[in-house]
């Protein structure tokens, strides 16, 4: 492990635990579901574990499991999974600056950037004094650990016990609703969020739940590109040197004065970000 700053590791691990707790709930139960599903198709018990370690992308793993019981077609699996996961291209574009200069942690951060890990790493900054690189590294690692444990449990349990845990996976929906609202309050323009919802609903209505992601992504990209002349000045007005600090710097919230945070690296967490995401005193 990269140990140029050994003292940074343990506080970063401790800071990474609270924001990933909702993921723990969601991933363990969704992982169990994925594991049970895979084994119920007739696949060996280790298949869900191997997928969780190497692929680490929930919806893609369900698709791959269903392909593993068909004829051997690795190229088809490659193309299908690329299309299913095409949305990850957006995550990379949004994290280009944040992952800069993170050395040996960078390859793993890129490898492990699933929906939930991106959501946490993008929206959460560690408390002051905690190394952001290590914080994001442990958020990623903990999330993958939860997923591997869930998938393995599901694979081992198989169809032995039908656990009545219907509804736990709503934690994922709730998490994304909260992150969406958080982004809404920070974003200097709400146009992007409105475009995201509308384009997705239009694509869902036209293409149905199994095929709407790619059309939705294309619609969003087109709309955001068309709106560039209106939106770019808004983002530029925040004086964002790096593109990711913009969402933090331009918040209209009362706690973080924009002039202060605009000049700092994202590492300097805003007080409300720390309070919102590390609220250990949850009542």
């Amino acid at each position, binding site marked *: 492990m990269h140990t140029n700053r050994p003292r940074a590791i343990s506080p970063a691990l401790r800071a990474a635990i609270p924001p990933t707790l909702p993921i723990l709930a969601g991933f363990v139960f969704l992982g169990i579901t994925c594991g049970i599903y895979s084994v119920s198709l007739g696949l060996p018990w280790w*298949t869900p574990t191997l997928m969780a370690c190497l692929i680490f992308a929930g919806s893609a793993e369900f698709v791959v499991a269903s392909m593993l019981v068909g004829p051997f077609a690795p190229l088809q699996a490659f193309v299908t999974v690329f299309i299913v996961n095409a949305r990850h291209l957006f995550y990379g574009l949004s994290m280009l600056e944040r992952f800069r200069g993170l050395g040996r942690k960078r390859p793993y951060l890129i490898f492990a950037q699933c929906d939930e890990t991106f959501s946490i790493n993008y929206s959460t900054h560690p408390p002051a004094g905690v190394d952001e690189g290590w914080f994001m590294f442990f958020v990623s690692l903990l999330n993958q650990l939860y997923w591997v444990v869930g998938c393995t449990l599901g694979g081992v349990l198989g169809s032995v016990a039908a656990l009545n845990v219907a509804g*736990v996976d709503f934690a994922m929906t709730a998490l994304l609703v909260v992150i969406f609202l958080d982004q809404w309050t920070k974003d200097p323009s709400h146009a992007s969020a409105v475009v995201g919802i509308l384009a997705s609903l239009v694509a869902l209505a036209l293409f149905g739940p199994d095929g709407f992601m790619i059309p939705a992504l294309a619609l969003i990209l087109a709309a955001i590109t068309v709106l560039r002349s209106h939106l770019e000045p808004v983002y530029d007005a925040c004086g964002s040197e790096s593109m990711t600090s913009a969402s933090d710097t331009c918040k209209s919230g009362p706690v973080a004065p924009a002039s202060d945070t605009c000049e700092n690296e994202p590492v300097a967490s805003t007080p409300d970000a720390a309070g919102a995401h590390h609220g250990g005193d949850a009542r």
Partner: protein
Amino acid sequence: MTSTQIILTILAAAAATVLTRALPFFAFPADRPAPRYIRYLGNALPGATFGLLVVYCLRSVDVLTGSHGIPEALGILVAGGLYLWRKNMLVAIFASTALYMVLVNLVFV
């Protein structure tokens, strides 16, 4: 499929996943600034992306049959309302999930 074929297929799927996650970093290396358009996308896409992910979570909800999406709507109202009120992510997520579980297991059976 044999075990070897299963492993090879999983490796192909893993390679495709890594490609979707790493492509932007190869296309725009860290040692020079990304083009203006790409930087603009990095600023403007997250809002839309989170909207897309919310819709993605709800893609299978059918408002015409079954429970008509009422448990999902109530769960989202509680999650959003609690978050805006208390500014506490964990409270909002756990309270709304608990409510949702009660609704789907006990009320809308």
